[in-house]
């Protein structure tokens, strides 16, 4: 145990003397938490629409006013020529074309029905789909308005209608940041934990100091503990920083007990650090370690349910996510922060992550060789 004390002393000194590590710990999480939730946002705003109005009637003007009034659509162009509109789309200026045909008003009044034409630039699929859906909603509303104008004083609604009232639970305002920020915190913790551990050990390999350590009677598990404990502490620090940024910038206060988040992180971190150790055992240079960590991180993040819902993944991909520690922590984070879940709700996740920690670290200790 005495040698562990000296190992820890050495690690902490080296960490606090390395400006690159300090930047990675202090500045990177803050910047990412500020930038990512703003960028990784599926709320559609500023959809550029080009309107071709062949009709120039009161109804067509009313329709255009309605479409552009909501703030989602920006009137990028107004013309009476389809070619001009298409050119706009080709130059990526417009996302949507709404064509109001000639005789729109006349037909609407006479036949109570008039066709409209929507063309969508589907290169950005999400934007196109949601834009078209929004536009459809607006058109439906418009339709409804005209009908109420025409049917004066409807004492009895002749057409029975089912009205749907949606009620969004947990994230009442469907705030995207409330959904993203807890997830991003997990990603940061994972990146800091696995990258720093892997790079730290591989650096000792590159410089040659690890050989000096290997000729000393230091016990294998002491050496590994000496590497894990400092990064465990730093990981919890990054989590604290993340929670503070979430609170100060986004006003996110976890609904559940914050202690649960720390409890989970305290068990999650050894799992991630163990992974970093494994990467460092395989890698000979910092470059190799970086690329390998990056590869794993991409898969973990893309398959961890941060951006896309795991439920909508194909079955095989869902199976893969069971072996992804990030999945569990993102879920727990969202459960505790947004839903206010209790210990009983997350104990299953806790058990799985503890298993991850045991397996990964045992594997790392066994595969770490003091001799070749």
């Amino acid at each position, binding site marked *: 145990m*005495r*040698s562990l*004390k*000296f*190992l820890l*002393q*050495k690690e902490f*000194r*080296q960490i606090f*003397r*390395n400006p690159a590590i300090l930047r990675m710990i202090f500045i990177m999480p803050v910047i990412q938490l500020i930038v990512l939730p703003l960028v990784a946002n599926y709320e559609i705003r500023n959809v550029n629409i080009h309107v071709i109005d062949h009709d120039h009637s009161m109804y067509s003007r009313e329709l255009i006013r309605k479409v552009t009034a909501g703030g989602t659509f920006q009137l990028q162009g107004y013309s009476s020529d389809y070619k001009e509109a298409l050119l706009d789309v080709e130059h990526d200026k417009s996302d949507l074309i709404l064509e109001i045909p000639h005789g729109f008003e006349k037909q609407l009044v006479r036949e109570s029905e008039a066709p409209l034409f929507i063309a969508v630039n589907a290169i950005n699929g999400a934007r196109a789909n949601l834009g078209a859906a929004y536009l459809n909603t607006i058109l439906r509303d418009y339709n409804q308005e005209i009908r109420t104008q025409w049917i004066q004083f409807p004492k009895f609604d002749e057409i029975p209608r089912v009205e749907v009232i949606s009620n969004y639970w947990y994230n009442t305002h469907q705030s995207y940041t409330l959904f993203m920020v807890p997830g991003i915190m997990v990603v940061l913790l994972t990146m800091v934990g696995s990258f720093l551990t892997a790079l730290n050990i591989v650096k000792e390999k590159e*410089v*040659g*100091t690890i*050989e*000096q*350590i*290997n*000729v*000393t*009677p*230091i016990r294998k598990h002491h050496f590994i503990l000496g590497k894990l404990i400092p990064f465990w502490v730093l990981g919890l620090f990054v989590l604290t920083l993340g929670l503070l940024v979430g609170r100060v910038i986004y006003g996110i206060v976890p609904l559940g007990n914050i202690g649960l988040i720390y409890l989970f992180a305290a068990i999650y971190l050894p799992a991630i650090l163990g992974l970093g150790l494994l990467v460092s055992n395989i890698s000979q240079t910092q470059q190799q370690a970086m690329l390998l960590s990056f590869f794993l991180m991409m898969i973990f993040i893309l398959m961890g349910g941060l951006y896309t819902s795991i439920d909508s993944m194909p079955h095989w991909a869902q199976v893969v996510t069971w072996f992804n520690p990030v999945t569990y922590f993102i879920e727990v984070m969202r459960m505790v922060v947004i839903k206010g879940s209790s210990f009983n709700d997350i104990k299953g996740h806790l058990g799985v992550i503890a298993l991850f920690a045991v397996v990964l670290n045992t594997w790392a200790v066994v595969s770490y060789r*003091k*001799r*070749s």
Partner: protein
Amino acid sequence: MKIALFTPCKITKTVQPTEENIQYAITANNLTKEFGDFIAVDHISFNIKQGEIFGFLGANGAGKTTAMRMLCGLSKPSSGEATVAGFDVSTQPESIKKNIGYMSQKFSLYEDLTVMENIRFYAGIYGLSDKDIKEKSAHLLQHLHLDHEKNKLVGSLPLGWKQKLSFSIALIHEPKIVFLDEPTGGVDPLTRREFWEMIYAASQRGTTLFVTTHYMDEAEYCHRVSIMVDGRIAALGTPAELKKQFDAESMSDVFLQLARQATRQAD
């Protein structure tokens, strides 16, 4: 400089575990390391007495470092046996590690720690008590005239100082045997001379020194020298004996005669 000559001992073909062997600091008997088809170290045998300065020579790629790594317990022998401080390299590497010091050709102190912190760290992991650490580090700093530099980062010291510090730290836990892998590479002649004075002082205290070097003048300082060619020991004896055997004026001539026989590509 005082050079105590030791009588050469014969290479014994087989090392029997008798009382006699215990006085040897290092014994090797047909020690071999293979990497696939490549035989890096090919059945080498020698005995090194306590307090001896043993020069381990050879061209680049001759297998010196591999042999040394096996003796330090960093690499497992493919076949043959060897003992260091009485412990078997195949089965008791961790016991060996308590009894040896090691200074590799790659500089192995932490450049981002200060002189004092490096001393404390290595003394600490070898299990020295706080009192011992304090006494030894004070003595070491004074001896190396590093008192004023003790709070400087090791990375900022000139190479010669780093090497002397590195050697002193390898000795801090008073090991029975110290392995030095090209300790004076890139060091100026004056520092090299001081370095060898330190080696002699350690030898006189009874420490056995196993040194690899490419400097043939340094080979002359060793009590006994072995020259490796293509993984085998091509010659072994005192510098005087070897010069006589190969009818050469200097160790450099001996080395060149042998190294030219090598068929293996140098790395």
